[in-house]
């Protein structure tokens, strides 16, 4: 009988040891060349006060870059790692979340300019028929529909099974086809081209189309065609790149009891077109400068196609891989993209009607779920937008 007990204890031991390394370990300090103009900026005290206020109100850490007629202002407040007491400085990479879609959209147009892909291609041209047949509406939509969210395809991020799968295997590196299994046979929101509904599933398909025409991962193309040429050396793609120790921890009030927990290692399908880019305010500014000001990534014609907007409710207009935001409270719409993930948030916007001022920030708190801090974040974002566009 003793053998049975030994076998049971052996099994307990084995199952306890079978875990993958954490994606994000403790954060360390990093060094950066501070923007000398920040302290001389006439709004230095105002901007810094906004950051300090909202960190005191509960946002764990913020790094921000603002550019206006008086120059570049860079500021930060709070912690990249609360436990290790590491300040959240502008060199700490944080999750840009859905800003990934802006980069993937830009890459799509770059490849179109090279003749490798056509945004009016049906996605069925590039994706296996057995996958297309299992996702409702997928057989009728184009890459453009996906980038503009006019497919009606069910959003994986709203699905309970998706969260259960993420919880089950928190730091799994998901493949696109594995994620799509979670939306098989789910009802669409509307028929293609008959509505607008932001859906993360759309850009999973775009990523898969890019992988097919490239013959290798779009992650490699992002690095070789955008990040490396722009010297965005602090930008990473989770699940595709090893994340450095300068990545900030991500927090969320997971249990809705006014405490926050470290959710850095709950990886929500990163690296599949809809999220996963980690970056810094400096690197995101390089991307925006190249895209919007220098126009070195895509040509005017592509930019024109990307900036064909449809209205999505009271808050956003959706372009093709880009968005306009803040129309619910500001006459000056931000052009760019926002990012929201479980433990991280970010904004990357330029304000064309306000002298092309720029606002970029990272917050290491997830803000789309229903928590008390969601309103604190929204108030922070609104306050900053109004101050930047004043």
């Amino acid at each position, binding site marked *: 009988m003793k053998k049975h007990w030994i076998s049971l204890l052996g099994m307990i031991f084995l199952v306890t040891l079978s875990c993958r390394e954490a994606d994000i370990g403790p954060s360390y300090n990093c060094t950066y060349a501070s923007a000398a103009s920040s302290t001389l900026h006439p709004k230095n005290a105002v901007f810094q006060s906004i950051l300090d206020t909202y960190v005191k*109100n*509960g946002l764990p850490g913020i790094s921000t870059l603002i550019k206006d007629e008086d120059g570049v202002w860079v500021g930060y407040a709070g912690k990249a790692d609360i*436990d290790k007491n590491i300040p959240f400085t502008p060199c700490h990479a944080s999750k840009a979340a859905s800003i990934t879609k802006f980069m993937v959209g830009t890459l799509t147009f770059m490849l179109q300019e090279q003749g490798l892909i056509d945004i009016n291609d049906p996605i069925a041209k590039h994706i296996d028929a057995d996958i297309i047949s299992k996702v409702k509406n997928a057989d009728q939509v184009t890459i453009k529909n996906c980038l503009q969210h006019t497919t009606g395809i069910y959003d994986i991020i709203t699905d309970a099974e998706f969260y259960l799968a993420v919880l089950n295997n*928190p*730091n799994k590196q998901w493949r696109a086809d594995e994620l799509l299994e979670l939306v098989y046979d789910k009802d669409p929101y509307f028929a293609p081209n008959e509505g607008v509904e932001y859906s993360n599933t759309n850009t999973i398909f775009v990523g898969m189309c890019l992988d097919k025409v490239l013959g290798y991962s779009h992650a490699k193309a992002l690095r070789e065609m955008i990040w490396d040429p722009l010297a965005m050396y602090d930008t990473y793609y989770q699940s595709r790149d090893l994340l450095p120790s300068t990545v900030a921890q991500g927090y969320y009030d997971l249990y809705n009891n006014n405490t926050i*927990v*470290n959710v850095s*290692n*709950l990886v929500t399908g990163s690296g599949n077109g809809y999220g996963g880019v980690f970056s810094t305010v400096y690197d995101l500014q390089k991307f925006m400068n190249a895209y919007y000001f220098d126009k070195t990534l895509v040509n005017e014609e592509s930019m024109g196609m990307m900036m064909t907007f449809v209205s999505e409710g009271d808050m956003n207009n959706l372009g093709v891989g880009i968005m306009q935001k803040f129309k619910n409270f500001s006459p000056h719409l931000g052009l760019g993209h926002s990012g929201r993930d479980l433990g991280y948030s970010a904004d990357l916007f330029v304000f064309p009607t306000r002298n092309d001022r720029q606002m970029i920030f990272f917050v290491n708190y997830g803000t789309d779920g229903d928590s008390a801090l969601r309103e604190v974040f929204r108030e922070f974002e609104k306050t900053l937008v109004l101050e930047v566009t004043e």
Partner: protein
Amino acid sequence: MKAPFINHFMALLICLISVTTFGQAKLTQLTLETGNAITGLPIVGAPQLFYTHYHPFNTIGASLVWKENGKQAWEQSFNMGYIYHRFVQHSILLFTETIYRYDFNTAFSMRAHLGLGYLHSIPGTDRFELNKQGEYEKIASLGRAQVGVKFSISAAYKLSPDFQLSINYGVLGQLPFVKSYVPLLPYNAIQLGILKNISK
């Protein structure tokens, strides 16, 4: 979750254990079970249960027979369990099950279990609270009181007069879990176990 509800539930559970243990019925069997608990809507397939990911789920328990009639019997079990779910939580369970047993022959039997109990959830990562100075402080994770519900079926095979080998598959629900995202956390659990008779 209101604390009084938990207190009342625990009091009820303790009363039940006391009445059954010190009343007419006597504990007849001890169990030790170990296996895997996978978060997912019921019913996940064998690949997930057995090898895609592991959250060790171990329980010890004791049971008694309420009523036995030929091949059928009604039993009650009292159990303590523990699930380790990396980056999510440590779950400590105290639960009782009402069990229907059917003996196919002298060696093989099957059971249907319906359980309810207290689940104490301790976050598996650091937890912080904002102090009056507007700074986050790490706080000791005393955990949260939760309710656990469990339904499972099991099969047992007699190895010797005193020991049986069992396999138990079922669904364990934890609630409330995460507002917005996952209000009820379902685990699919499979466990291998040893049952030891302690009275004849």
